[in-house]
Every structure is written in structure tokens, then in C-alpha cells.
């Protein structure tokens, strides 16, 4: 196996009840890369990435089989605690979801407090550090105790990114993180990604082909729960190998 592989998925299947929505996916993400997941709605992108931090199994009737090796250890091994996995594999959702009654500060450190970190100097340091990393510090440093929900949509999303980064994850999963944002906020998050990849490995679901092309190193094209094509982004968008990929990215689908 590749020494730089941080996340390796082997024959992953996922179900909702008796319906299989992820059908035997295998792929590898290398350290400090951005992988874009594209594909039509309902093809299983969200379900797939939710399997990568064991969030999928939280849905009623949901289950998964296969292996997900995070730094060489299978996160689906029996004795593994899902909560510890979610600290190492963070997630940012489509709709910014800061904890509604919490200040900006408390939002960022919520995960750390849960993990038992109490020292206020440590927390302060991490808040500044995480907000810097999420390119939000300058905008909020004078109002850390304002409610997280008082920020604009784009700022809230960056707050969620800061919150995810605060626990120093290895991998950051992002499910259409800019689809609810305006172009300027989107641009900020895209810019941020080029910085973030120095610290974490990013797997991002996006409906925006140009966004995938701009920000990612590899692109995975999903269709009906299957991985149709997985390759270098520049190759996938200039000369895709599969006819289905070609049709999807040129808008000839259906």
C-alpha cells in the first residue's frame, strides 16, 4: 500500500433497511490531498462519506460493511469507538449548523470540552488557532462571545470548519459545504481549502463541476451507488475514461 495513504476504503457497502445505496466502493485518499465526489443527486455520495466517520450507522435501519482504513486501522473493527473516529474524521455539512445557543468561542471548543479539555488558556489558544485556520479570526476576534448564529451564512460555515478543525482531525469530510452560500463566501471557502490541505486530507462532495475542477486533486464520479471513475482531476475533466462520466460532466446526462 501507498505510504502516504491516510484513508483507504475497501469494498464498502451501505444500506438503508434492505436498500443498498453504496455498492462496493474501493478507493484511496493520500495525505494532504483534496478529493472531490461528484454525481447526480441520490447516487450515494452523502451516504458514502457518512460511512467514513461512522455517521451512517446513526440513521435508523442503516448499516455498512467493508473496511475503512484510517491510518492503516479499520474504523469498523469491533472495539473501535465511533465517537473517537468522529474526532479524527471531522465533518462539515451543507447547511451551516453552529450550535444555536452557543457563542462563537463555545462553538469552536464544544468538541474539546466534550473530550475533557478544561484549561482556559489552552482553549483560548485553540480557538484563535482554529479560527485563523478557518480564515474567520479577523472578522470575529472582537466578538468571540456573540452567538454563532449571529454571523452571516458564509461566516457560520467557516465557524463550522473551525469547530471541526479544533479537535485536529486527520480527515475533513465536507458535504456540499458551499451550496447554500453566495459566490463570495464560496470563494473564501475554496481559498481556505488550499490552506487546509496542508493540515488535513479533504473529501468534499460538490454539485459544482467547476468547483471540483478548481479545488481537488482527485475526482470520484459516483452513479447509482457505484464508483464509475476515479482519477486525477485534470484527467477526469479533460479526458474522462468512461462514457458515463463524459455524459455527466458535459451535461448530456439522462
Amino acid at each position, binding site marked *: 500500500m501507498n505510504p502516504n495513504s491516510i484513508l483507504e476504503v475497501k469494498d464498502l457497502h451501505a444500506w438503508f433497511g434492505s436498500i443498498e445505496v453504496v455498492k462496493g466502493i474501493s478507493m484511496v485518499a493520500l495525505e494532504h490531498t483534496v478529493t472531490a465526489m461528484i454525481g447526480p443527486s441520490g447516487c450515494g455520495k452523502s451516504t458514502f462519506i457518512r460511512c467514513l466517520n461512522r455517521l451512517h450507522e446513526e440513521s435508523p435501519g442503516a448499516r455498512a460493511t467493508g473496511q475503512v482504513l484510517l491510518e492503516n486501522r479499520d474504523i469498523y473493527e469491533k472495539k473501535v469507538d465511533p465517537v473517537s473516529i468522529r474526532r479524527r474524521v471531522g465533518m462539515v455539512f451543507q447547511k451551516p449548523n453552529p450550535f444555536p445557543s452557543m457563542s462563537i468561542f463555545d462553538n469552536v471548543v464544544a468538541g474539546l470540552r466534550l473530550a475533557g479539555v478544561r484549561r482556559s488558556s489552552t482553549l483560548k489558544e485553540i480557538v484563535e488557532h482554529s479560527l485563523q485556520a478557518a480564515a474567520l479570526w479577523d472578522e470575529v476576534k472582537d466578538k468571540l462571545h456573540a452567538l454563532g448564529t449571529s454571523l452571516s451564512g458564509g461566516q457560520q460555515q467557516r465557524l463550522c470548519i473551525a469547530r471541526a478543525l479544533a479537535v485536529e482531525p486527520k480527515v475533513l469530510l465536507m458535504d456540499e459545504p458551499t451550496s447554500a452560500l453566495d459566490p463570495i463566501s464560496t470563494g473564501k471557502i475554496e481559498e481556505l481549502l488550499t490552506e487546509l490541505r496542508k493540515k488535513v486530507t479533504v473529501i468534499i462532495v460538490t454539485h459544482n463541476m467547476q468547483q471540483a475542477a478548481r479545488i481537488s486533486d482527485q475526482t470520484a464520479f459516483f452513479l447509482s451507488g457505484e464508483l464509475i471513475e476515479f482519477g486525477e482531476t485534470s484527467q477526469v*475533466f*479533460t*479526458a*474522462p475514461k468512461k462514457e458515463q462520466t463524459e455524459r455527466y*460532466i*458535459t451535461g448530456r446526462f439522462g
Partner: protein
Amino acid sequence: MERHFDTSLRELKEQLVVMASWVERAIEEATQGLQLSSLERLENVYELEKKINQSHMSVDSACLKLLALQQPLATDLRLIFAIIKINTDLERMGDQAVNISRNAREYIQAPPMKPLIDLPIMFQEVRQMVGVALDSFVKSNENLARDVLQRDDRVDALKNKIFKDTLEHLKTHADQIEQGLTLILIARNLERIGDHSTNIAEDVIFALTGEDVRHASQAATIKNVLKSSS
């Protein structure tokens, strides 16, 4: 299901095909003008070149607009990329037709030198090469495009022969040095037109397959040389 983009692409392709027909005409007029010693036909090249230049600009701006508004990917992207490059090649071919016309004018106004033998053959070869290259684009036909790449060597060989024979002739006809040089220039202009046809063929292959075949023959030649010397 036809996309809006397909309509724009079709229009763009049509525009390029019209431009290509002017380029073919310009080469035709330049070469016929020389062979028939017709100043009038040589003059026609200038009118055609004006139209080619107009079209060059308008195709470019149409491509730019499509890139900006449609942000094409995959085959769409490769096709637009090819069109932009073919557009430039066509414009340069128009320039070369003008160069031939200019050189031919000098040639036919000077005292006659010797009957032209290889040059008409080269005219014929290059016109065919241009024709096949443009056909490969219009018909999206990879085989035709590969055929063009084969023809390039023949054109080069003809050019070399014209160079050599003309220089040989000039050794004993020093008074005809100007005509001789003009002839060599014309052969050079034609060779350039051949090169542009090769570029077009390579762009067509890239648009159709995603394969970059440029400089491949060079690599193959080097390989063969290495093989035969070992």
C-alpha cells in the same frame, strides 16, 4: 436532447468551415496564379486574406464567450481548445498564401528561369494535405487526421528536392539568383502550410481522443535511431 451549448458549438464549427474554405481558395489562387502567370489571380489572395482575418477574430471571440459562459469540460473543452488552435493555424495559412502570392508576383515578372516541375507537384500535395486535414475536422474523422500526419514527410522531401535542384541550377545560372531564391521561398511557404495542416490534424486527434500526438513521430524517430545503432 440537444443542449444550448451544442447549438453554439455547431455554429462555431460552421463558421470555422467557411473560414477554411477561404483558406483553401487563397492557396488555390496563389498557386494557380503562379502556374498560369496570372497577376489577377494572385490579387484575389489579398481579398480572401482580409476575410480570413475577420473570421479569425470573430471565431476567437466566439470561443472566448463559450468558455466564459458555458465552462465546457471533457470533449466539449477539447473541441473548443482545438477550434481555437485550428483558427490560428488557418489564419497563418492565409498569411502564407499571401506570401506565396507576393513571391509569385516577383517570379512571374522576372525573366523566365526554367520550367517548374516539382513545385506543381508540391502544390498538389499541399492542397491535398490541407483538404484532408480540414475534412478530418469537419467529419470528426481520426483516420483522415492520421493520414495527414503521414503526408508531411512527402511534402518535406519535395521541399528539400526543390531547394537542392534550384541551388544546383544556380551554380551554372548565376544571373537567375533572384528568381531562384524566390522559388525557394515559395517552397518554404508551402512547407509551412503543410506544417499548419499537420497541426490541425493533431488538434483533431486530441479533440476526438484526448491523445496528444504532437512530437510523437520525433520520439519514434529517436527510438528507431537508437534501435538501429545498437
